[in-house]
């Protein structure tokens, strides 16, 4: 079942066109990652999907009644704003405390309910954002560089959590990431964006595509090697990434 259809989408800010003629389809239950260099329009694409940016051409069609869980790129809560994790999670959702606890459990932080948001660490904060997005049992999760500010083990753990969420809830996941190494292992499909869709397909296919290599060059090879190295130590399911690196 198709959740999101993007047809011929273009987005401009003034005279500056950041996206042209983008076509994209997200199916139920799949993990899709958008990679691309800075300024390639990744965030604009996500903003167009949630309706925060008006397309200058083309259109975004959501499945009727589609429930979206959104995890923002970076959320700065001013320290002058006192708000507990529970209050934060229930702010835009009419849900019970029990649902909050459940969502926190799914996101891997079951004990944070009564803490103040300003007291959380970076990793805890991102997981609370994830839990907040999960609370309404969304059909799809949108993550905009959700691991910004986390160190490498931290973001690897976060992406494992995402895979875990998909396994438990079956919701589709569309995420933006600049951390190619992590992305390669977790995604069903990778879309390589640079103002337009350069190439897309399974992680292995994209990694070997000439367009992708032209964009990310040798630096990526290094990152993948690093990742493979790490995972040889810690995990046993790094096959995808090894294929991707080769």
């Amino acid at each position, binding site marked *: 079942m198709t959740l999101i259809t993007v047809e011929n989408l273009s987005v401009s800010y003034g005279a500056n066109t950041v996206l042209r003629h983008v076509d994209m389809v997200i199916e139920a239950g799949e993990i899709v990652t958008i990679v691309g260099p800075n300024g390639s329009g990744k965030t604009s694409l996500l*903003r167009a999907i*949630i*309706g*925060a940016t008006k397309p200058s051409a083309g259109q975004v069609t959501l499945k009727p009644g589609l429930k*979206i869980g*959104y995890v*923002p*790129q970076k*959320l*700065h*809560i*001013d320290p*002058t*704003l*006192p*708000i*507990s994790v529970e*209050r*934060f999670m229930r*702010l*835009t959702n009419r849900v019970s405390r029990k649902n909050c606890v459940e969502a926190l459990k799914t996101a891997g932080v079951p004990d944070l309910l009564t803490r*103040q948001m300003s007291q959380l660490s970076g990793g805890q904060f991102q997981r609370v954002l994830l839990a907040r997005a999960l609370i309404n049992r969304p059909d799809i999760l*949108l993550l*905009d560089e959700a691991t910004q500010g986390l160190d490498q083990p931290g973001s690897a753990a976060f992406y494992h959590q995402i895979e875990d969420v998909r396994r438990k809830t079956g919701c589709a996941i569309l995420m933006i990431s600049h951390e190619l190494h992590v992305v390669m292992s977790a995604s069903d499909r990778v879309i390589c964006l640079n103002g337009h869709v350069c190439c897309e397909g399974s992680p292995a296919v994209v990694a070997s595509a000439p367009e992708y290599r032209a964009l990310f060059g040798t630096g990526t090879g290094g990152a993948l090697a690093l990742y493979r190295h790490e995972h040889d130590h810690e995990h046993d399911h790094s096959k995808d990434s090894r294929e991707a690196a080769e």
Partner: protein
Amino acid sequence: MLDDFMTRATLAGIGVAFAAAPLGCFVVWRRMAYFGDATAHAAILGVALSLTFQMSVFTGALAVALLMAMTVTLLSGRGYAMDTLLGVMAHSALAFGLVAVSLLSGIRIDLMAYLFGDILAVSRSDLLVIWGGAALVVALIIWRWSQLLTATLNEELAYASGYDPKREQLILTLSLAVTVAVAIKVVGVLLIAALLIIPAAAARSLARSPESMALIAAAIGAFSAVAGLRAAYVFDTPAGPSIVCVAAILFACFSLVGWQTKHKL
């Protein structure tokens, strides 16, 4: 009861404190402290205009404050940083206002009354305007509370939840303009921002939730109004500044207490 000028002054102070408290919380959370200043300074121009065209001071001040608020909202994010824009607009509006007042021929106005407020001269009809405006602002904020709070936390989060953060920003801006217009008589143009920010800031160290911060700020503001007026009466000091002084002292005390408990943990 309303025959006594002290009673009227106290009621006026409490009315303004109630509107300023929740609004002040948003001003603090969103770091738009300068916004209150700018809107207030612009209101002097409104006072001059309303005297020229023989409208009520409230109408003139409200019109210019609204205009100012909308202009700044429109211009923000287009080349100049927000604080630069506000600095330019606030002080030029104040300057133009003062010049305009001096050009008014044949009318003697007490400029000090508008710069520092003249709460002791509050009339029954002023009281009606103040409480009407305050009720409007408080009702607006209660009605949009979750949306305002979400938009304050994160713009994209608001969009994803189906709210338009720009509309929420506009609601805040309009409320700010109304509050400034009704508060001119009470504390004056130069001290309105203080009444917005100080009670909210003082409430921060005592509050555990956004709602409690707004309520505590309202209590601190109302107490400052009552105690400030009393102090002004006893020590024969100007009323508006005395109110702000009480609020500032409360801020210092609560911050010290908050700082101490934090460091004991």
